[in-house]
């Protein structure tokens, strides 16, 4: 928190009042609700994405590159894999691209570095300002949902940075996906700035500007196509480990149990089989919904995931038919035919959060059906596995 406050001060200007301004408590309940405006001056830290600094009426403003460097791309790659994703941030405040003037457009972004990178990399031919809000390192859409990319923070950040003194116009361009957190008419009433919602994707910004700040209908629509889903794969594989690891430990240790209470030999032999099986269920349960989402039967994610489990376990069954020497006892066989669809269903249900079209009401509804089934199926499968040990 202290670090965050220190970062807050980096791009503040001299002209600010001493009065603390309250901003939304926001996403992180532990978050600091007070922004201290009593800063001294802009301190420029060396950052690879900062090209230069320019002197303006409100002090020095960093000018950023519009090409992503190798280290930027590595950073994005790391964030996709979940490494240090919560610390993939930049300092909130004002930045410049190109050679902006008091008439240049102002783009608003989040202080999740990937959001900022996506924006600046599309501004190569545009002279403009970027106002980065403090969203606690969360992307625009998620932060808007939590309210940190929100009306209060936007109004406060305009004041803190002195944007109203920097530009002569009163227009700010927000990403459309910031709209769940920002009330445009309230911003207008309280700060005099008119919010213009730009396109969903930064890649459409140039076309949006050329079209006279008008977005074509397609630019306003969120997609969830193959590529959109594919980039989520690594993070989902990592995020679901919290469910996979305990399940894997239980299934591994279970294999050691027997009439003689515990056998290390069996633990190694059957335990490894269990590990391979649950790992297969886990990887297929994560990958198949991502790959096959539009073509899987059903509308609920838990149903789609159950189908994925069935596909995998059907392949497994086919393998057993071809290789009867690997055929397990009947209770274990049935148990695994239950486990695969259950794991697939549960993982896929959690994929709702990564998707771009599920509603809270819908997810609540599907969970009311799916969760009891998943828990019941898991208990039955566990009992069958234990039965299999003793028969």
């Amino acid at each position, binding site marked *: *928190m202290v670090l*965050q406050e220190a970062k807050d001060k980096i791009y503040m200007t001299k002209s600010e009042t001493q009065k603390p301004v309250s901003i939304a408590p926001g*996403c*992180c*309940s*532990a*978050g600091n609700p007070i922004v201290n405006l009593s800063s001294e001056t802009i301190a420029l830290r060396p950052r690879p994405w900062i090209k230069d600094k320019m002197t303006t009426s409100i002090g020095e403003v960093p000018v950023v590159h519009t090409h992503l460097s190798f280290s930027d791309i590595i950073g994005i790659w790391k964030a996709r894999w*979940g490494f240090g*994703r*919560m610390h993939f941030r930049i300092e909130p405040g004002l930045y410049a691209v190109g050679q902006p003037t008091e008439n240049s457009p102002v783009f608003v972004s989040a202080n999740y570095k990937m959001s900022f990178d996506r924006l600046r990399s599309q501004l190569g031919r545009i002279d403009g300002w970027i106002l980065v809000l403090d969203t*606690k390192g*969360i992307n625009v859409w*998620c932060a*808007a*949902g*939590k309210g940190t990319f929100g009306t209060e923070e936007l109004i406060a950040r305009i004041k803190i940075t002195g944007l109203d003194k920097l530009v002569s116009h009163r227009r700010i361009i927000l990403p*459309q*996906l910031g*709209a*769940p*957190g*920002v*009330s*445009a*008419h309230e911003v207008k009433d309280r700060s005099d700035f008119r919010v213009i*919602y730009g396109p*969903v994707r930064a890649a459409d910004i140039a076309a949006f500007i050329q079209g006279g700040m008008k*977005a074509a*209908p397609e630019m*306003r*629509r*969120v*997609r*969830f*196509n193959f590529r959109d889903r594919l980039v989520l794969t690594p993070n989902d594989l990592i*995020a679901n480990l919290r469910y996979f690891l305990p399940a894997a430990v239980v299934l591994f240790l279970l294999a050691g149990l027997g009439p003689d209470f515990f056998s290390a030999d069996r633990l190694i032999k059957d335990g490894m089989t269990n590990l391979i099986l649950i790992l297969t269920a886990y990887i297929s349960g994560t990958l198949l919904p991502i790959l096959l*989402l*539009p*073509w899987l039967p059903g*509308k*609920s*994610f838990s149903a789609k995931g159950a189908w994925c489990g069935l596909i995998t376990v059907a392949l497994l069954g086919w393998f057993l038919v071809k290789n009867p020497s690997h055929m397990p006892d009947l209770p274990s066989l049935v148990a695994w035919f239950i486990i695969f669809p259950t794991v697939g269903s549960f993982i896929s*249900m*959690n994929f*709702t*959060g*990564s*998707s*771009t*079209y*599920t*509603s*809270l*009401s*819908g*997810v*609540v*509804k*599907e*969970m009311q059906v799916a969760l009891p089934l998943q828990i019941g199926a898991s208990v039955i499968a566990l009992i069958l596995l234990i039965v299999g040990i003793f028969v």
Partner: protein
Amino acid sequence: MNRLRYLPDVVTLEYDAAKCNGCSMCLMVCPHAVYVMENKRAKIIDRDACMECGACAKNCPEKAITVRAGVGCATAIIIGKLRNTEPSCGCDEKSSCC
């Protein structure tokens, strides 16, 4: 996106056309083209496409739209149940987030 449709008849979106001033802000902020303009007023044409993000309600100056906004995320709902709070991604300064 046509093939990706979520559960029908679940969303809490409510809209009172009588209050509409025709500003078309809801059309602009909706990521799923739920609204169209008809006779200078907004009209819901695809209610089931709504994901309850709350952008339209938040940006309607006439308060003609209400919706229980939230994240359609099972993980968030599970975390909310465990902590006995509203659905939450559980992202704070330390832990990870959706």
